[in-house]
C-alpha cells in the first residue's frame, strides 16, 4: 500500500515537473532560464519513460537530450547572444493571436482523449533493451542504417556550416 502510494507520488511529481518546467520554457523571458528549464522537462520525460518500462529509452533520453542536445542549445545561446548580458531578454510576438489556434488544437486533442474508447491491455513490465536491440538489427535494420547515415551527414554538414570561412581569419 505504502509502496503504491510512494510510486504514485513519484509519478505525480514527475508529471508536475514536466508540465511546470515546460511552461517555464515557453513563457520565461530570459532565454537561458528557458534552456535550463528544458533540462527539467527532459528529465521528467525520462522519468515517465521509466514508468512505461522503457529503461533504455530513459537512459538514452538523458544521454542524448541532456548531455548532447541541451548542451548544444546552451552553447548556441552563449555563441549567438551577448554573453555578459545576464538577462539575455527576448521579446515575444503575437502571443494572443497564437493562443487562439493553439488553444483550439489543444481543445480538440483533449476532446479526443476524453471521448475515445481505448482498448487497454495489462502492461508488461520487463527489461526491454535486449529485445529493442534485436528489433533494431532485424526488422528495422534498414531504417537503422538510414538513421546512421543521416547522423553522419548531419555531422559533416554541421561542421561544414559552422566552420569559419577562409576570409574570416588570416592563417
Amino acid at each position, binding site marked *: 500500500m*505504502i509502496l503504491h502510494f510512494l510510486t504514485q507520488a513519484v509519478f505525480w511529481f514527475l508529471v508536475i515537473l514536466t508540465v511546470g518546467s515546460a511552461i517555464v520554457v515557453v513563457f520565461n523571458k530570459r532565454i537561458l532560464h528557458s534552456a535550463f528549464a528544458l533540462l527539467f522537462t527532459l528529465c521528467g520525460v525520462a522519468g515517465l519513460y521509466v514508468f512505461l518500462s522503457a529503461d533504455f529509452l530513459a537512459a538514452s533520453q*538523458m544521454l542524448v537530450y541532456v548531455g548532447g542536445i541541451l548542451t548544444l542549445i546552451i552553447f548556441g545561446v552563449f555563441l549567438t547572444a551577448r554573453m555578459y548580458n545576464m538577462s539575455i531578454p527576448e521579446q515575444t510576438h503575437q502571443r494572443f493571436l497564437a493562443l487562439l489556434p493553439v488553444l483550439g488544437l489543444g481543445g480538440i486533442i483533449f476532446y479526443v482523449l476524453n471521448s475515445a474508447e481505448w482498448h487497454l491491455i495489462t502492461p508488461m513490465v520487463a527489461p526491454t*533493451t535486449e529485445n529493442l536491440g534485436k528489433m533494431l538489427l532485424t526488422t528495422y535494420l534498414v531504417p537503422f542504417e538510414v538513421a546512421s547515415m543521416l547522423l553522419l551527414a548531419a555531422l559533416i554538414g554541421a561542421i561544414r556550416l559552422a566552420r569559419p570561412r577562409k576570409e574570416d581569419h588570416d592563417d
Partner: protein
Amino acid sequence: MIALEPYLDLIISVVYVVGIVLFLSLFALFATWLERKVAGHIQDRLGPMETGGWHGWLQPIADAIKLLIKEDIIPAAADKKLFKLAPYLVFIGSLAGFAVLPFAANLIGSDLNIGVYYVIAVTSLVVIGILMAGWASNNKWSMYGAMRSAAQMISYEIPVALSLLIPVMMAGTMSMVEIVDNQAGGFWNWYVFRTMPFSLIAFVIYFWASLAEVNRAPFDLPEAESELVAGYFTEYSGIRWAMFFLAEYGDMFVVSAIAATVFLGGWYAPFPFLDIIPGPIWFIGKTAFLVFVQMWLRWTLPRLRVDQLMYVCWKIFLPFSFANLLLVGLWVVLKG
C-alpha cells in the same frame, strides 16, 4: 507492533541511500587529506602533519567544519536562482552514479540491466550543472572554465563510452553484477587481461579519458589556477563550494569504481584463495588504488593546452577506440 514485512525493501533502500551519502562524504573528506599527503610526498614535503596528531588525519574534519560555518556569498550581480541550483545538480549527477556500483554481489543500489549505460547517462547532469554554475556566477573566469569544462567532458564522453563497450561486448550484458560475475576466478579472467592487447588498450584509453571526464590533471584546464583563477567555481564560497568539491571527489570514485568493475574484476580477489577476504574490501581497495593513481598523475604531469586536449581526444583516442571496438567485435564473433 506494526508488521515490518511489506516495508522491508523500502527500509533497506533508505538505509542504503543514507549509507551511500555518508560513504561519499567520508570518502571525499579523506581523499582530500590523501591528496595533500600524496602531493606533499611527491614534492619532497610531508603534507598535513599537525592537526589531530598522527599525520594530520583530522585536517579534513577541520576544513569541513570551517567551510560549513563560513559566510555564504552570492554575488549581487549573479543569477541567484541558477547560482543556488547548480551545486545540487552537480552533486546529484555524481551521487546518482553510486546507485549501480556493485560493492559486492548483493551490496548494490540497483542492479539495472542497463547499468553501464545508466552511469554514462547520469554523468550528463554534471555538464549541465557546471555550465549553469559558470554562467550564473556572472564572472568571466567562471564562464571560460565552464565552457572549457563542458567541451572537454562532452568530447571525452565518446572514448569513455566506446572503451566501456568492449567489456560489455565480451560479457554480453550491461548489468554491473553480471559483468563482474563473468570475471570470477583469478586475475587472468579479468577483462583487462582477456583479448590481449585490445582490452588493455581499452582500459588505458578509459582511464585517461575518465581523467578528463572528472577534470583532473593533466586535463584540469577548467580549474587551471594560473589562467582561470578557479574555473567554474571561482565565485562559490563556503558550503556551496564544498558541494562542488564533494562532487569532484565523488566523480573520481565513480569513474575509478567503474574501471574496477568492468576491467578489474569488481569484488573478486586476484587469486581465488584470497576470496575469504570480503568482496567490498577488494572493490574499495581496487577503486582506492585507481584514485591514488589519479592523484599520482596529477602531481607528476604538467597540464595540457586546450588544443592539445582536443587533439588527444579526437585524433588519438577516438580512432584507436573505434579500431579497438571493431577488432574485439571480430574476436567475439570468431570465438562464437
